[in-house]
């Protein structure tokens, strides 16, 4: 069963800016789908079209089998939404926000428990939102999205403003919701949280979907070599490992030689080259982190269309952080 489907979904804003370009996306019922992309990739515009905040220029979408442009209120009845960058009602308390959403959805809710679940105390619950921190607002918005046990959660940058602790709690709740059979669709530019909870990932860049798949499948299809760290007895001079095929960059830290690879077959070559010159003590092979995958993928994608300044294809990327 399909929770969200888009077919050729396109949005051109006035002035010819193409925010979303011919997007075909399918999110199955019951899965946690991570919608990844850098800021400005068009993620929010896609979500805005799913919720009928913005009308598509071309193409169509269905959410829970309904067309947002004609049946938005039926979609909203079964969907919990956390919109991005929207302000709450400064003069209302957290409790009043949750109670209002419950009333609008025609469900009853234990507001105290709902807020407690996202980490807002009963003292917080009775304060006006005007005095909330950014993280508290985000927690409240998440609690509002969860009201009424919706079949689908659409969360736009849900971890924005959360501290690491808050992000951990957020992931925990997403897992609980997924265990209860709910579909979770959330956008993010933070890869760690997506890697941790998503069944499938779609990468959006510059309005185009550049890849979809499970985190594992994305690693494989991209044929990423990962990194290999080799502990050696003595680091040889003039190694020149970088010049070998499939080796992207080499760093030396103490007696550890660490090579980032574009091709996994280069691992053996690196080890062999070191083994020739010195004694190898330990070998640690690491798979590609999604963060790296993401960076490389989105920049490769751009490089396909425009060459980098020095005329070569821009396939070299730095590992973020």
């Amino acid at each position: 069963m399909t929770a969200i489907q888009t077919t050729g979904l396109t949005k051109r804003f006035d002035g010819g800016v193409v925010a979303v370009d011919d997007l075909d996306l399918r999110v199955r019922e019951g899965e946690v789908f991570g919608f990844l992309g850098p800021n400005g990739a068009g993620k929010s515009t896609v979500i805005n079209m799913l919720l009928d905040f913005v009308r598509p220029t071309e193409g169509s979408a269905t959410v829970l089998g309904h067309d947002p442009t004609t049946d938005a209120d039926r979609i909203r009845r079964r969907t919990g939404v956390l919109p991005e960058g929207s302000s709450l009602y400064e003069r209302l308390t957290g409790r009043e926000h949750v109670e209002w959403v419950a009333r609008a959805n025609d469900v009853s809710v234990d507001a105290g428990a709902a807020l407690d679940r996202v980490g807002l105390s009963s003292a917080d619950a009775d304060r006006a939102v005007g005095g909330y921190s950014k993280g508290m607002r985000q927690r409240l918005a998440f609690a509002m999205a969860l009201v009424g046990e919706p079949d689908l959660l659409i969360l736009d940058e849900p971890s924005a403003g959360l501290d690491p602790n808050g992000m951990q709690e957020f992931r925990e709740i997403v897992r609980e919701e997924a265990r209860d059979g709910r579909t979770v669709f959330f956008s993010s530019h933070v890869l760690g949280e997506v890697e941790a909870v998503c069944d499938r990932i779609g990468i959006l860049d510059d309005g185009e979907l550049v890849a979809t798949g499970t985190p594992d499948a994305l690693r494989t299809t991209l044929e990423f070599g990962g990194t290999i760290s080799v502990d050696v007895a003595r680091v040889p001079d003039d190694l020149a490992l970088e010049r070998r095929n499939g080796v992207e960059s080499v760093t030396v830290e103490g007696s550890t030689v660490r090579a980032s690879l574009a091709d996994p077959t280069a691992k053996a070559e690196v080890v062999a080259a070191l083994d020739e010159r010195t004694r190898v003590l330990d070998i640690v092979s690491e798979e590609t982190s999604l963060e790296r995958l993401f960076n490389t993928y989105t920049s490769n994608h751009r490089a396909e269309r425009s060459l980098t300044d020095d005329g070569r294809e821009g396939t070299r990327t730095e590992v973020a952080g």
Partner: protein
Amino acid sequence: MSVRTVASKDFLDARRAKIVWSVGVHYPLLIALFFLQVRLGSVAGPPDLLVALWNMAFVGAVFVPAIALVATYLAIAGERESGSIKYLLSTPVSRRDVVLGKFVSRASIVAASLVLGFAVAAILAVAWFESLHAAVFVKIAALTTVYALAYVAVAIGISAATATRSRAMAGALGFYFATNLVTLNDDISGLAGLEYVLNDVLGLGIGADLIQFVGMVTNPTRAYLVSTIGVFPDGMTATMGLPRPDELSWYVQPEIAAVILVGWLLVPIVLGVRRFDRATLS
């Protein structure tokens, strides 16, 4: 149901806003002042409540639109600018429900302010004046309420059609100037200009009644003022230099003016619903 959830939440939010309260107390205060002026100012004979009520209508003509516009113009545009409209529209309410719910909420707040004003007026009428003129009083109160709601409707329409606070404010101020401040001075009103062009320049000889009718259709304040003429006894309107209703064409009678006033209540809401339904919220 959905209209009610929008209205009740908005009412909760708006009644905590200081601006709404500070605007709301002005009307009762002004009524008290104008009644006091009539009470103290009548040198010959007993103070006449009808004059005080006429003042109440005139105070209303100027101040009621200001109260209605200020209390309402941000209702939707403010939420669009801050983005909170997305929370509102993430619940199962339609865009039409949002516009109607906001109207109900702001209309209740403005109506509450008017009722307070009428209560003050009623108490002062009994305490200071000899005859109560209950029928005139009730009719003026009713017409003023419809008049206020018409301006709430206009402000909701402007708020539904604009995406930012500043544009909503420009729209509300512009409407207030065009229909109110300008109307008070007949020489510079758009209507005077129209009459000048049609009759003095083009020499069409359009009658005053037709010009007046155009005025009522294009301006709720004029419709309100004409409608109040029917409330007062003929003798009084004559002393104020106003035309007697039986001298006027049928389409500028006070009753027709009241109907046009109701139109001013409905049409802006319909237009606002249609505009907001197609609005992009990003």
